[in-house]
């Protein structure tokens, strides 16, 4: 019988679930990442943030708003569904393909790929390959809210919200207001 309740203001569906990041934690992490991106890219106004469908897109939009607040310009936000470039179609096709759109392309511009959770690295590999068809970026970096380890490819994020050591049987669930109704990162069991 699952026990529901609130912990640190976060709604949990199950008693074994654990809150890793609360709404405030996520806001602070996103603010820090925004500053780090600006620092690393010398506030380049060419900057393109490419969010991976679906939660990465909303995180990219938040970063863009933060950057506008900090530096006074709003980076272009693109969307990418790298599913067709994945090497594991089983995972690939459980949801409809979502549109990819990068206004004005990426030729010669610094690009930051934004995703919610970094795990095996296979999505990021696919995303980088998909991105190549949009042009030759001057540089590709990676920002993730949570890095949970267990990489299967030589991929390392440039900007990390939180490092979370996990077991393979665990599940990291990122909830964001735009989709899930609240902001939280929850560690649970693979259902």
């Amino acid at each position, binding site marked *: 019988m699952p026990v529901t309740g609130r912990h640190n203001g976060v709604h949990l569906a199950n008693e074994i679930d654990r809150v890793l990041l609360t709404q405030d934690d996520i806001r602070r992490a996103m603010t820090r990442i925004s500053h780090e991106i600006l620092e690393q890219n010398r506030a380049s106004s060419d900057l393109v943030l490419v969010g991976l469908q679906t939660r990465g897109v909303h995180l990219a939009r938040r970063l863009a708003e933060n950057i506008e607040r900090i530096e006074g310009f709003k980076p272009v936000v693109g969307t990418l569904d790298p599913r067709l470039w994945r090497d594991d179609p089983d995972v690939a*096709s459980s949801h409809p*393909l979502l549109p990819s759109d990068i206004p004005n392309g990426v030729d010669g511009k610094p690009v930051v790929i934004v995703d919610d959770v970094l795990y095996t690295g296979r999505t990021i590999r696919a995303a980088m390959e998909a991105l190549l068809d949009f042009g030759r970026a001057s540089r590709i970096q990676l920002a993730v809210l949570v890095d949970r380890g267990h990489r299967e490819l030589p991929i390392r994020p440039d900007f990390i919200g939180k490092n979370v050591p996990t077991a393979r049987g665990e599940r990291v669930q990122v909830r964001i207001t735009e989709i899930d109704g609240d902001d939280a990162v929850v560690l649970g069991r693979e259902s």
Partner: protein
Amino acid sequence: MANPTITVGNGNATEVIQTSGDKADANVTPRRHLLDLDDLSTKEITDLLDSAAGMLEITNRDVRKTPALRGKTIITMFFENSTRTRVSFEQAGKILGADVINVTASASSVSKGESLLNTVKTLQAMQIDALVVRHPHSGAPYFISNHTDASVVNAGDGTHAHPTQSLLDLFTVRTHVGDIAGKKIAIVGDVLYSRVARSDILAFQKMGAEVTVSCPNTLLPDEWQLGTTLDASTGFGGLKLARNVDDAVEGADVVMALRIQQERQDAGHLPSLREYSDRWGINAKRMALANDGALLMHPGPMNEGVEISSDVAHGAQSVVEEQVRNGVAVRMAVLYTLCAPGKSSRLSGGDEA
């Protein structure tokens, strides 16, 4: 073939259909074949249309290529002439990175008298992943799906079904009007023989649209009466059969003209093409009866001056070329959905990355 009847999921065919309808979760047993739309749930249809939107973006890129179906072999096997459907499937497969091989009946061993079964077995032996079939006999794709491990896609069979045409018609309408539910669709043309009519009536009704057809009495199934609304026992419950074309078109959001074949006149279904054009042809005067901004559709190829006049066929309300463009995206969604899942499980990790 003298007097075909229109039925839903008829007789033998039903046994072959996979039952992943409304009850079953499509994610649990991935769909292998697309033979007709009658066994697709509205969610499966919506998912395909959503995917097609993502695919359409890829067809508009400078680099139209993805590795999604790399290493997969798709064979298009056309026992009837076709330009757009065959090319559309070929392009869809190629953009997804599959190898596409085209077989036409006239240039294959079929012309030497090889049976359909043996042809399929021969192709099966070559390790193919998908077989796109057009055949003049209704049910041929069902038959084939029973004798191959490949995914079978019906690209039009006899007077039965043309599911990818209907999906692209739904997609085109959805792009313009948003939600299809409640919209009025007028279909004008050969209802008796047209697989597009049958599939489109089914598809639009399934998505909640109000469908009206108009055609000469001779091109309607025997048991249907002009001026009536069909009940559920026909499988097309709620389908209105208009007494004349003006009644069907009036207030419509979408007007679809279907191709009238010369053979119909030769077989005595029509007094003359000229009379058909006069009484059922879609022209500017008739389009004016439809709602403002109504879409004019035609599955092609068009007989301009017969079922559709040239001015409206290429006019502002016509989405005929858009239908063709959308056809590639929809077929990409279909091929990807059928061929990608369940064929590989190299990764056992979760759904995050």
